[in-house]
């Protein structure tokens, strides 16, 4: 084996000779100096509070006493032992499952319809469909309270006039969670139409024109060409639905049912809030927050591994 020795160029020798003392440290520090503002911000506003929450989850603290007492993993044990948190976790999964079609199938269908008929009417529809995202969530929830009031709400008046049975949609244990999901669904549909619209705008229409020339029907084009190309967006929206289902139902739960009736609309975020600001049990609330973060991180990690596994030949 032959080793080639590269002669040191006179130019680089000159640079080395001219390098001022301490220049090496400065070279190494420069990238960190550029990154420092971002790292500091992340440390103070993101990872700092996260670590603080983990510390808090090991304490028994009522929010007003000067300091909490260390209780180890008792708060986590309490979350597992008491039925409320596991039940709220189960209901959060139900919310995700109930909202998934409204985060994917419904907005995809509406976005494709709007995309296929471009023009002013389509723009008007798009604006109207986007409205639930810009409306104040509390105001929307209060409007739903008046609509669904069991004794004087419009919904039951209309049902009564049509001869259909009237219900207490938010007060009946068999309908409350699904009603709450439908109320929240409008927001998912509205936002995800926009995201699917952006994905559709990036598609090359010439391929679809070519398919039409080859005799493909609109349904075949949609099913075999458009929908598969929206796969990446759909995966992203599924993950966003997983993360935001619990958070977006929170306002509606807080305004409309406070977790009732008999806990049937409670979810992990509302339970966390209840621990912190109804029971003033900051430690258990922090333990719930850490548990949610760990579960979501585990799900994200598992999905990443799955995608990497599938991508391998």
């Amino acid at each position, binding site marked *: 084996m032959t080793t080639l020795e590269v002669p040191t160029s006179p130019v680089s020798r000159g640079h080395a000779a001219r390098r001022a003392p301490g220049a090496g440290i400065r070279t190494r520090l420069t990238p960190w100096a550029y990154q420092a503002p971002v790292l500091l911000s992340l440390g103070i506003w993101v990872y*700092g*509070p996260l670590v603080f929450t983990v*510390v808090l989850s090991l304490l028994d603290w009522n929010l007003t006493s000067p300091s909490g007492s260390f209780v180890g993993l008792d708060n986590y044990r309490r979350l597992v032992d008491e039925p409320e948190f596991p039940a709220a976790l189960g209901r959060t999964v139900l919310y995700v499952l109930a909202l998934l079609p409204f985060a994917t199938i419904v907005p995809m269908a509406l976005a494709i319809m709007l995309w296929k008929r471009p023009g002013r009417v389509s723009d008007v529809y798009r604006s109207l469909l986007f409205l639930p995202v810009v409306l104040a969530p509390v105001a929307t929830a209060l409007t739903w309270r008046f609509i669904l009031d069991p*004794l004087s709400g419009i919904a039951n008046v209309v049902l009564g006039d049509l001869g259909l049975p009237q219900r207490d949609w938010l*007060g009946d244990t068999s309908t409350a969670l699904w009603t709450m999901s439908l109320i929240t669904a409008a927001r998912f549909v509205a936002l995800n139409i926009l995201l699917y619209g952006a994905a559709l705008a990036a598609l090359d229409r010439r391929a679809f024109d070519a398919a039409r020339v080859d005799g493909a029907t609109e349904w075949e084009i949609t099913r075999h060409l458009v929908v598969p190309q929206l796969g990446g967006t759909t995966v992203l929206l599924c993950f966003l639905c997983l993360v935001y289902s619990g958070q977006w139902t929170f306002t509606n739960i807080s305004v409309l049912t406070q977790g*009732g009736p008999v806990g049937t609309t409670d979810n992990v975020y509302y339970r966390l809030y209840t621990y912190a600001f109804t029971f*003033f*049990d900051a430690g258990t609330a922090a333990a719930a927050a850490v548990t949610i973060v760990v579960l979501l991180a585990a799900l994200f990690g598992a999905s990443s591994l799955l995608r990497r596994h599938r991508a391998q030949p």
Partner: protein
Amino acid sequence: MLGRMSHRRLWRLVPAMFAVAGVLAAAACGDGSTTPSAGSTPAAAEAIPTLDAATKVTISFLSYNYGTPGLGGTGTQALIDAFQKAHPNITIKPQGVPVADVLTKLRTDTAAGTPPDVAQIGWSKMAEAYTALPITPVQQIPPATEWQQHTAGISQNILTAVASGGVVKAMPYTMSIPILYINADLFRKAGLDPAKPPTTMDEVKKDALAIKGAGAEGVYIGVADDSKSDFMTQSVVNSNGGSLVGKDGVATVGSKPVVDALTAMQDLTQSGAQPAVSSASAVAAFQGGKLGMLLTSTALMAAAQKSAAGKFELQTAAFPTFGSKPAKPTYSGAGLAVLAKDDVHKRAAWEFIKFVTSEAGFEIITSQIGYLPLRPAVTTKLADTPILKLLQPSLSQLDTVTPYTSFKGTQANQAVVALQDEAVAPIVLHGANPGPTLTSVADKIKKLTT
């Protein structure tokens, strides 16, 4: 090479070091900003001298009535305006807060070192407030003679009921007790005489079924309260000869009088006399003229009067009894607590409290907001006004008012929520079996309160 690798690893630790520093800084800020320890109330302090007219002071007043769009908001503003006119050297800086968030806001403000000087706190949360907040007992602020002079004209039964350990820590302010609101038009439509309202729970059920038969809803007894307060539950249970807390302070939620009282409430729902809806829906239905009777706080009086105007004739009746047992309604509403830190602000807070609980103050509170006048002199003065005529049944029951009782310990609020969410609402609105449900919740409450 090895040295260089270690160096690189060291540099990789920089972000982590920043994160830890941030946490420590946050933790340090948190500790530093917290103020007096929970439950620290000064022992019988020296009375604070009066303020001279030249001393200008601004005090903050946290109120769940202030800023609300209804009569509570305008009435509270009228009280503040009248006080500032009478005391130009004291400025009131009001802060509005939703009723459900009062304790949360007070706790977080106290943790931040900026509690309001005076706070309107609901009686159902007062026991927890006494242990968690740096409240100065209001009775200890003025000299004893001044206190006696001011409270001489106030209903002594109320002062005794709200006292804690013989000392009035929070001043009775917006007090209310349950009253039976009646839609006289629906009574007549059902062939009933509104001049002869029901006096017992059995009569309430009978009349409610008659109203239901005439096409409206019958009655709603607000035990399953949306705000998760148990004051109506206590009123019903006490009137049935029971209590939620025994004399020894131990919870008696599973006892027979409690089971029987809630069984009677469930029977109203299952018989169709009472709609299985939330208390907010029932109030809206009554105000819309669709509900015959509503048993709830007198705090709703002014609003009920306003909504009934031109729509239906509003009448009232006293809290119904369980057979021959005496009615023992529990009071609700709020007291005024002083959280001011220094003597000047404490004295200014007392001047404000003294004014709003004077005859002039209670005149505004009763005529504009609708709460009970706790001074008999005001009752006499307003005797001919429509609102006082409607409040009369409750005023006649003031002597039998039973003090609100709190569960023991720091998790008392959690125990109340468990009682209301896991027992009262399931039994009354959703048909849960009263005995086993209350036994199960009683076990949970015992664990939370011991």
